[in-house]
């Protein structure tokens, strides 16, 4: 049980990732596949955020040392933990993965936007966003100018 609680975030990451991948490969609908992709990408977000967690760490916004707030935060730490790692003052979460995943989220949003835009164009050109129907239409037109703009 304690293993489950300790690894809860990572278990959720794996479930999200697999759900996303499953949706991508099992759906015929282009929009659903984009949703699967978004889910798959957001699992990375959770993964990175879990990675950055430091026990007892607070948000990585510098608290002025020796302020009342810093003392209050330091007092919340487990004494055994402080002794074991020789912690002095406030403990922060690792900010770097936060920044990384912020970038990855931006990249993900851009990908999503492009993907949905392509889905719109597919619908304009084929009149459907279902992959099997698109395949059929694609095969029936082998040569010559096609519609689309």
């Amino acid at each position, binding site marked *: 049980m304690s293993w489950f609680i300790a690894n809860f975030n990572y278990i959720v990451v794996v479930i999200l*990732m697999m759900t996303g*991948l499953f949706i*991508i490969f099992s759906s015929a609908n*282009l929009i659903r*596949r984009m949703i699967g*992709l978004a889910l*798959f*990408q957001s699992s*990375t977000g959770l*993964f*990175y955020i879990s*990675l950055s967690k430091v026990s007892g760490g607070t948000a990585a916004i510098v608290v002025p040392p020796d302020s009342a707030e810093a003392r209050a935060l330091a007092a919340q730490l487990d004494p055994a933990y402080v002794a074991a790692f020789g912690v002095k003052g406030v403990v922060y979460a690792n900010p*770097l*993965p936060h920044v*990384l995943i912020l*970038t*990855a989220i931006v*990249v*993900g949003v*851009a*990908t999503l936007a*492009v*993907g949905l*835009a*392509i*889905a719109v*164009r*597919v619908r304009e*050109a*084929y009149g459907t966003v279902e*992959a099997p129907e*698109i*395949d059929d239409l*694609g095969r029936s*037109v082998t*040569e*010559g*100018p*096609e*519609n*689309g*703009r």
Partner: protein
Amino acid sequence: MIGLETLYVAPASLVAHAPILAIVIPLLGACAAGLSPGGRSAWMICVATAVFTAWMSLATACEVMRQDAVVYVLGGFQPPLGITLRVDAIGALLGLLISVVGLLAAVVSGHSLVAEIRKEKHSLFLSGFLLCQAGLIGIVYTGDAFNAFVCLEISSIGTYALVASGGASDRRALPAAFNYLILGTIGATFYVIGIGFIYGATGTLNMVDMAARLAAHGQSAPVHAGFAFIMVGLGIKAAMFPLHGWLPGAYAYAPSLITLLLAATATKTAIYLMARFLFEVFPDGAAASEVFLTWILGPLAAAGLIVCSLQAIFEQDIRRALAFSSVAQVGFILLGFAVGGDQGLSASLFFVVAHGLIKGVLFMALGGLTIGIRARRIVDFAGIGRDAPWTVLAFSVGAASLVGTPLTMGFLAKWQMIEAALAGERYWIAAVMVAGSALTLLYVGRILEVMMFREPAPGAPRAKEAPAGVILPALVLGGISIWFGVDSSLPGQLSVAGAAGLFGVRP
């Protein structure tokens, strides 16, 4: 050594910032081209940017030759904490390839775009093209694993949109682009997950630092998991068999200019990153990469080389045939990785450049031939050699180099590969390479036979000679591939130095 140093003159102030300028200027150029009112002005901006980028990458390459590796610290944050650009010999070589092919493609785009893209979209198209260039150069210049992901996605998002822009003339480009986007994004996300694992294990993103810390800490389960994620992710991007499903569609239906860019440079940068991780970041001799090379990469690459060459032989659509050929040649390159060692790696890196140039010429000439006519099937090109001799000449130069005719770069590349395989006593790999080369001869020979000796079908649309603005760049690119076939000192030295560099980082 041909005097590369004499080829350029650049003020010291520019040279000092050349690596970052080669990335930032195309980015700014992309904005300018996108905002410019007409296609013509966008094209001028595009060409000017491409010229400047090529100049800067040449300056960087010269610096690399002088002092081994150029490290450019971004924003004044010292490594390993700050992001750095670290250009070594192989990065410089690929940077040159990307920027030179990009420059020629930019020149060609003046003609090839007109038929394929609506006029009011030209400036946006060229903007995407420059964005892609910036991302590709970023990948080969950066020394930061996460920064490489960002650059990978900058270039990929550009190419998704550009492949989809082929939908204006052939709607099948749209589903192909969608497929490419889905698989490409899965690949990139796998890469990010892998980087997360490695970051969790080492606490660093700087590739050199990562290598040192991995060597010091040894292997662990997270490191192995990260390694696997990174390899699968980059395998998708590099179109490694059997992860190449996105490639034939994307190559076949994209505008010819984009096929040229994809084939010559985009998959090559993923292969480059793969080499970087396999040989520099993950210590060799360690369980993970050794097992991967021997039991997974080698057999898959061999299967890809044979299977996709056969598919290319039986393919009716000329661009799909060349696309399958690309997957097969990727197999060839990865076989070189499987051979391993300095020799195998440097042969692979040489092959990467050779194949980039070859596919550049082939798709450039093909794009030129199809400007006037809608031809897709190989039989549509019957007898075209008489109507468009110069374009077909350029195509033939590329084809000869692809087959590996002596005096071409393709010959040297294959020769070095097979030599490395024999020296490494991997006889089955050498046998597969020879078989793959023989199959290459079959599909290339079939295309050339149709082009040169068949009578065109009566009433078929006759191709015209491509405009000089296409033939000249194609011949220049073909000429480079022959020049390097005769005097390979420039790519040869850089790839040998590059391989030594990848191996030499380790303590």
